[in-house]
């Protein structure tokens, strides 16, 4: 007998493995940006803030839910791990990434081929890390540490001044410090003052964690209640 077609989207919503709060927040920031633009301001803050929120939205906890057995019936209904991962990837990373990028660009970002490529690599890195880290249990440790570091770096005066100096291209710290700053605040790599190799590293790192998350999810031992 042919099984009825299950809906991964509906199941992800029922099991809270999809973050929907990103969309009302995006709409609110887009309205704020439009109002700002109408008043003659560049309103880039809304775009940067959405890029900051993107990894949080992308962190779905899909693997945690699957490990705990919440996806058992969905798999029993004929859904495959691979298809479910792609669905979650599209809904948690690709779609929010497109929304964040569109609002960022609409906020007054000077769009050229080079700047678009830099923006893409940063979205790939932040969203990819958020998606992959959120996929596993370590989102509660490594993910939060990363997010706190991102917050701290723009709150601590020395961190903020280092980022500002780097953005203006006034002084470029050594490769190690620059790498740390790019990891903590990857959005800095959107600007032309940071060498392109850091954008390339962002792209490679983002692609690597996304590929790892696919492999990890499709091969993981889903132990059910034992994981709780």
């Amino acid at each position, binding site marked *: *007998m042919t*099984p*009825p*077609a*299950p*809906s991964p989207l*509906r*199941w992800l*919503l*029922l*099991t*809270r493995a999809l973050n929907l709060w990103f969309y009302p927040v995006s709409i609110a920031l887009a309205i704020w940006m439009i109002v700002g633009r109408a008043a003659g301001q560049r309103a880039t803050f809304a775009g940067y803030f959405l890029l900051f929120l993107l990894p949080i939205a992308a962190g779905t906890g899909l693997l945690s839910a699957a490990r*705990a*057995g*919440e996806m*058992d*019936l*969905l*798999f*029993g*209904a*004929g859904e495959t791990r691979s298809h479910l991962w792609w669905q979650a990837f599209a809904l948690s990373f690709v779609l929010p990434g497109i929304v964040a990028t569109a609002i960022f660009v609409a906020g007054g970002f000077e769009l050229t081929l080079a700047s678009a490529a830099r923006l893409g690599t940063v979205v790939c890195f932040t969203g990819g890390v958020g998606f992959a880290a959120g996929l596993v249990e370590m989102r509660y440790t490594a993910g939060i540490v990363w997010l706190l570091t991102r917050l701290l770096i723009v709150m601590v005066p020395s961190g903020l001044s280092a980022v500002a100096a780097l953005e203006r291209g006034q002084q470029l710290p050594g490769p190690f410090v620059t790498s740390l700053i790019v990891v903590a605040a990857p959005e800095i790599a959107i600007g032309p003052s940071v060498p392109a190799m850091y954008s390339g590293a962002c792209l490679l790192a983002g692609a690597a964690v996304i590929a790892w998350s696919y492999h990890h999810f499709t*091969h993981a*031992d*889903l*132990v*059910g*209640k*034992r994981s709780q």
Partner: protein
Amino acid sequence: MNMPLEVTALHKTYGDREVLRGFNGTFESGRVTALIGPNGAGKTTLLRIIAGLQRADSGTVSGGRVLYYGGFDLLPSRGTVNQFRHALGLPKHAADGARQLRQLSRGERQGVGLDAAIELAPAVLLLDEPWTALEPDSRASLNETLRLIAHDRVVLCSTHDLDEVIRVAEDVVFLSNGLGTFKRHTATEMPDREELVNLYRESRKH
């Protein structure tokens, strides 16, 4: 009649603890099979490996589409009964469809989950503690349904409830020390409770 479920030489370890030690078994459609054994014997692990949810260290499983149902506490925490069923591609539930899943009692949730698992009509239906939280009449109804659907699919139920095993199961697999002991019962020779209890007693001696 569907193809049987063939399980060959399954091995599974958790750390240094060997849960399954070359488990072999053939489970045929047409009969309800009960999987019993002490706590920690590996019953749930065996079912989850058969369903492809867990990976065996070695061994093979062959059969048709498998569905594992692990109990009411694994159902989604939000949404209505109809939203839950819709997500699985099932038609709406006329009676309780509008009720929120979180507002259902444990027994009601178990019923909703079992109904969905059975309606999804897999070739191999694996039920982990299916009688938990069910009222007596619901248990009787479930047993009747299991006997009915088993005619063209493999039905394997893991449980400690020996009374229900005696009522519904025709084959019994006792899992202990990572291996299964198979007992087949004919219509005239139903499982004997004392015999099953003795299997538990014997397993503790090892």
